């Protein structure tokens, strides 16, 4: 027991590995939010009139909204005036090669734990097959492999470039899945979003490489509001990865992103996230508020959207990647591992809205809570009246690693068609003593045993991650869970 306690102590006292910041000169707007802030952001980004109007509409709507309180999370009131809404590295590189990138910034990438592989990719090392768009504070600094992608007709660039180069596409799809009126944070994002990634896969194209975005909040008191828009035209395919880190700071920082996916007839989008924002220290001080709206729509028949997420960071997570299954025979998937430790709180899950006939969805959610954390699954499965033969299977398991943590399940199941089949099951338990004993007997210490059991427990989800991320995610999990037996 003493050994276990020590192991637990080691784990709970484990410090955030990505907690550092780099002094890069930034171009910031002053703190505060008003119509002027919105106009200033739009002006800085040299945006067209329609986009500014859209932002302003969102801002005015936001003023009429109240912060949502229904999630199973507690945090102090956010002061939206005490925050910087735009921060850009001063020397925004107009680069063709990495040599031109600010050296400090390169160091930033180097310091990102994920950078060993990514560095190579950023540097266009031959043989690498991931195109990366890195978002640093509020702006996108580097998008690689644009050339290779262009050959195939794939557009992958920062959001601001897309606004300039492909205004028609942006205008057509922006807000089509998550309208600016959607919810408090999505509306705020619509008003002040600074950058993000844009991706368009033309008809019949299978994107030759993984597309990837890295988000990092660097500057102090900065909120990060990025917007991702992925459009897969008919019969195309793409796999999109997203990673996040932030430096260690005492005060909480807000991250309110919006992700919109559009899958046309026969298209498939696979969207994977490894979220490792700074979770706050062991007393629950600091950390990122991760209030994200992610939603995809299968507009045409046989379209497919698959969400995979590994959530280990953030002080508070509030995130429900959802899929609207509009096209007949379309498919939605959601695979999630959420780990909370210390005073972290996560309220995450998915919404599967079945509208078309023969639509299918699968939800697999694995929650792991340790320390004093709270981990909730909240999900909606809605079968519309016309969704004949719709099928859903949901499984939400929770694992408790300490007697002071909490695990909760709040599924909403609304079924309006008799031919639909909807199943939901959930279990909550702790790691079995017999399982640990079995491993101990075979020469594994308790720490390794826990790692093994937890990795096995999450396998179903980790298997869904693209290779590049699976390794990283597994590492992240085992770091997070070292010896965490209570």
């Amino acid at each position, binding site marked *: 027991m003493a050994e276990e306690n020590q192991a637990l102590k080691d784990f709970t006292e484990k410090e955030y590995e990505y907690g550092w910041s780099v002094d890069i000169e930034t171009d910031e707007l002053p703190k505060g939010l008003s119509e002027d802030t919105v106009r200033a952001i739009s002006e800085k980004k040299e945006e067209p009139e329609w986009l500014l109007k859209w932002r302003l509409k969102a801002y005015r709507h936001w003023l009429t909204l109240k912060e949502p309180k229904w999630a199973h999370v507690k945090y102090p009131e956010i002061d939206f005036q005490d925050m910087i809404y735009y921060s850009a590295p001063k020397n925004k590189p107009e680069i063709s090669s990495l040599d031109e990138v600010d050296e400090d910034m390169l160091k930033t990438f180097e310091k990102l734990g994920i950078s060993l592989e990514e560095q190579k990719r950023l540097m266009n090392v031959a043989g690498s097959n991931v195109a990366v768009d890195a978002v640093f504070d509020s702006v996108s600094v580097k998008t690689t492999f644009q050339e290779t992608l262009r050959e195939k007709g794939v557009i992958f660039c920062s959001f601001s470039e897309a606004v300039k180069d492909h205004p028609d596409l942006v205008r057509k799809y922006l807000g089509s899945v998550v309208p600016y009126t959607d919810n408090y944070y999505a509306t705020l994002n619509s008003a002040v979003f600074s950058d993000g990634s844009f991706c368009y896969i033309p008809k019949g194209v299978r994107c030759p490489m993984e597309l990837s975005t890295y988000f990092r909040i660097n500057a102090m008191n900065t909120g990060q509001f990025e917007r991702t828009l992925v459009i897969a035209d008919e019969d195309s395919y793409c796999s999109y990865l997203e990673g996040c880190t932030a430096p260690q700071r005492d005060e909480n920082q807000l991250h309110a992103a919006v992700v919109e996916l559009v899958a046309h007839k026969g298209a498939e989008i696979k969207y994977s996230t490894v979220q490792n924002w700074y979770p706050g220290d062991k007393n629950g001080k600091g950390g990122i508020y991760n209030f994200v709206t992610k939603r995809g729509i299968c507009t045409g028949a046989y379209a497919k959207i698959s969400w995979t997420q590994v959530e280990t960071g953030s002080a508070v997570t509030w995130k429900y990647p959802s899929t609207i299954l509009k096209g007949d025979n379309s498919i939605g998937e959601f695979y999630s591992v959420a780990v909370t430790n210390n005073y972290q709180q996560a309220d995450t899950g998915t919404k599967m809205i079945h509208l078309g006939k023969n639509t299918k969805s699968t939800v697999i959610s694995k929650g792991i809570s340790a320390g004093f954390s709270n981990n909730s699954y909240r999900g909606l499965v809605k079968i519309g009246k016309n969704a004949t033969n719709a099928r859903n299977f949901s499984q939400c398991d929770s694992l*408790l690693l300490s007697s002071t943590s909490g695990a*909760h399940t709040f599924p*909403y199941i609304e079924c309006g068609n008799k031919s639909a*089949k909807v199943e939901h099951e959930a*279990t909550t338990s*702790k790691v079995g003593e017999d399982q640990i004993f079995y491993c101990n007997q075979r020469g594994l210490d308790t720490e390794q045993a826990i790692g093994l059991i937890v990795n096995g427990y999450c396998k179903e989800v980790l298997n869904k991650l693209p290779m590049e991320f699976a390794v990283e995610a597994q590492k992240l999990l085992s770091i997070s869970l070292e010896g965490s037996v209570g």
Partner: protein
Amino acid sequence: MSEAMTTSILSELVSGAKSANSFKGIRSEAEGFLADSRIPSKKHEDWKYTNIKRLFDNGLNLVSANDITFNSVDGVEVYWSTNEELVGSTAIHSKEAHAALNTSLFEKALVIRVKKGAQVNEELILQQVIKLNDGEFSATRVLIVVEDNASLKCQHHYSGSPQNSSLLNNLTEVFVGQNARLELNYVQEIGEGNLMTTTEVECQRDSNFTTNCVQLYGSLLRNNVNIRLKGENVETHLNGFYMLNGKELFDNHTLVDHLVPHCESNEIYRGILAGKSTGVFNGRVFVHRDAQKTNGYQSNNNILLSDDATMNSKPELEIYADDVRCSHGSTTGQLDEDAVFYLRARGLDEFGATALLLTAFAGDVLKAISSEILRSELEDKIQNKLKEMRA
């Protein structure tokens, strides 16, 4: 959700409301709570799928409580009271608006008491025939006390044919003593009326509490069951079966509150929905930090017979202890075609085959009812309703 309500809320909601002289303490608490709250609208999480507010929109008149009749059973004291101490001691009236409304407006409480150690074998049957006219509101109150080492089986049968825009609000408080046993069965068949029932239960150590609720007819039936496990080693079972047709809306909300270690709860709710009906199930299992070694199980299965029927199911687990085994499951779908085909191949017509399978589906819940008489009555009623659903 309009203007904040004042202390006059009672007379606003229900005309003819006046504060009675009895139970002054709890009534003033309830009125205080009502003053700060309002009848919940659909924006209220617990009322998301059920619009109760519309019943109050045209104003309701308070009428005297309809009598509850009961049989005489050896070993059980049953009497009407205006001063029984335990009434209101669960304090549910300071948590829920509808319970507060009941507490403010009931006239007298029906007290059922089984003394220490008394084993009662005969079933106590409460018959409540509701005769409310349009626009009428009535509140009834029941208190069941099963003292230490005693046991009781009780049935509360709601029937009658109240008119469409009337509302009956019943609140039952239940105290199950140490090592006591109670089986509490509800049958709800009230034609077109609206019924709101709340059962608030407190179980002491080593006790055993079972409740079965069968809902057959009603325009709107809302059934809240909250069970608080206050002593260790309690075993509790909650079962429900509901059949809906036409535009009926039945809503079951349950809470099992595990406050202490070593308790077990089992919950099975099943339903069949036809016509344009709407079913709601919200089952919550709450395991507190201290409630280690809890076993909690919950399942909700629904069969839809029509495309216009809707089922909203929300099984919830909220767990703060780590050494627990809790699971829940929820399914919504239709009958297995293969099973129907199997029976038809053996000479049953389509209705016969469906009815047989649906009866078996109900059987898993009904078997928890120990009274054979009640069970066979219910089986007949279920057959009748199945025939109506076919029409």
